[in-house]
């Protein structure tokens, strides 16, 4: 049975992040259009951890990109704290990506020229003008070092990404996502490139952060073991929400 995505008694306007009727298609060449999302509804409450699962090509990553304002929907609306954000001008969307969302990618995407500490500082470096940066530099560096410490890499701050293992790089990427003090963490296959042990430790870290700090998290994964650590699992199939399952019932 296909369950409605928004459960009863779960008022959309109370949601932390809320999307209605999202449609997205990609164009290949001049005439070929590949529909990816056919009208997806999605909602997540503050402090909740939701896993989005589905087969390859089901639209998981596309949904995550739309929710994180990396791309715009063809149809549908996205609300953050009740405010519509998908139609905001580019400048405002850039600002929201910098302040409201923290991204964690499957391939870590750390800047190879920068050290781990500098990578963690990147959201702040983007946010601040040179003057603001120099006046707050010491405090910001201390905070970034603390985040590195929190993900267990306090001793690796001066190392370049090429000197870190996969697990360490992903932890650094998580620290980077957290250092910008975002409202929501969006993780796209965070354990996809890691061995079982490192993947386990990264998921534990995300789960702990969610529980300790009440941080809202959306994790895209195809690994059910990873998904089971979330509060809810949203299953996508061919661009539609197939099921919405609280983890206890899964």
């Amino acid at each position: 049975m296909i369950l409605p995505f928004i459960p009863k008694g779960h008022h959309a306007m109370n949601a932390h992040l809320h999307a209605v009727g999202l449609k997205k298609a990609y164009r290949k060449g001049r005439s070929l259009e590949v529909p990816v999302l056919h009208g997806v509804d999605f909602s997540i409450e503050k402090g909740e951890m939701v896993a989005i699962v589905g087969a390859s090509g089901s639209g998981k990553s596309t949904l995550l990109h739309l929710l994180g304002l990396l791309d715009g929907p063809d149809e549908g609306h996205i609300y953050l704290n009740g405010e519509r954000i998908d139609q905001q001008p580019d400048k405002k969307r850039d600002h929201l990506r910098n302040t409201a969302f923290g991204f964690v990618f499957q391939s870590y995407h750390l800047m190879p020229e920068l050290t781990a500490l500098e990578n963690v500082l990147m959201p702040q470096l983007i946010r601040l003008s040179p003057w603001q940066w120099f006046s707050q530099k010491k405090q910001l560096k201390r905070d970034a070092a603390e985040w590195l410490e929190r993900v267990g890499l306090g001793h690796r701050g001066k190392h370049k990404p090429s000197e870190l293992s996969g697990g360490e790089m992903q932890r650094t990427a998580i620290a980077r996502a957290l250092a910008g003090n975002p409202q929501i963490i969006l993780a796209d296959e965070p354990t996809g490139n890691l061995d079982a042990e490192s993947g386990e430790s990264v998921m534990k870290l995300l789960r702990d952060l969610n529980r300790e700090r009440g941080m809202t998290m959306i994790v895209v994964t195809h690994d059910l073991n990873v998904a089971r650590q979330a509060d809810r699992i949203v299953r996508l199939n061919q661009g539609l929400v197939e099921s919405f399952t609280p983890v206890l019932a899964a």
Partner: protein
Amino acid sequence: MYKYLLCWRYLKTRYIALASVISVMLGVATMIVVNSVMAGFAHTMRDRLHGILADVVVESYDLDGFWDWRDVQSIIQKECGDLVEATAPTMETFGLLKMYLPDGQAVTRQVMVIGIRPEDRAKTGDFSEFIQDDAGKPIKPGFEVPKNWQTNSPAGHLLKDTPKDDPLHDILKQQAGEQVPDRGAIVGYALATIHRPGSSTDDFIAPPGSRIGLAFPKSGRKPEAAYDDYTVVGYFKSGMSEYDSMHVYVPLERLQYMRMLGDGLGAGAVNQIQIQVKPGVNINEIAGRLQRVLDSRRPMYFRVATWEQKQGPLLEAVKIEQFILNVLLFLIIAVAGFGILAIFSMIVVEKTRDIGVLKALGASTSGVRGIFLSYGLALSIVGCGAGMIEGLLIVHYLNDIENVINSLTGTRVFNPDIYYFSEIPTLVEPWTVAGIVLGAIAIAVTASVWPAQRASKLHPVQALRFE
């Protein structure tokens, strides 16, 4: 802030991009060297031209000149007396020079015969600095023939042993005067000498004390030539071959007399008045003022020109040469700009995923563009700075470099005999250097605009998925 951090890191790690600005560096260095050498040549040439010519020249269109030159001098004094330092009446005409060789042959050359009063001419321009003897030592400008030259002539030797009452005495005296005329002439150095290829010294065909013959047009209704003999008493060597191979200076009164334009005692016509003005005075303004006043006295008769106007074509030619050379050299930097464009485009492709991450983390379109523009600016500053230092060092040690090349190749790169300069003249003009550096920076930054724009327009999702 991230723009500057990334720009700095790219600068430190992307050596391929640094290689791309080597061509900018070489272009800037070449332009500085070429401009400094050309400016040095032009400056030295202007100095010499200005030294030869007075600041302002009043001349008549008629080669026979004007008799009332003292009145013209008074007008000059009246109009601009407080601005004028000195004036010199001069008679200038075309002529033929004959130099007699010891074997009986004669060499004939076309010359400009200039009648001057040495003491007056020395006050207008650097004329006195260019007068020298056969050994190259400076001598005082003058036309006096030393007495012993006549007594040392073949006839003079015989005259010494001939009693005054001897009928031959007067004949020998006349012959001594013919062999060594008592009228001196200062001859252009290039006229009086021959430079044999491979020789380090010049051979004199008109050594000091030798007799020369001059023919020049007489005044009168029919074109007729006058002929006169002179003794070479000095040489005029300005370093400008145009003058050194043409000018022959003779006493003004004698030239006036021989051209039938004077009594030989002071009264006579001149066709030029050279004017030296005080430092800092606007010579164009003086020339314009004098032209108006003299036109009102005798319309269409006088031409007043500054030394720059008289040498206009030569100075203009140097300017045009310098301009064309600069255009060609700037094209080299423009080509280097395309190199930067290509390498920057490559870097943008290489950095596509990083650009996607930056956008995901909130970097704006203008911010991403700013990374690559500031990177282009930083690279061009490095390239142009290095080029400027290299260029200035080459200019500073240019003559030492030339000596090294000379000793390695065994040939003279810069032959002082051709240019009359003992070493390659250079002049570093700060504004020119600044113009070259700023122009090169502008080209390099312009070349990075398109790749920067391309980077800024990348879609974050497509950039993140880029393999």
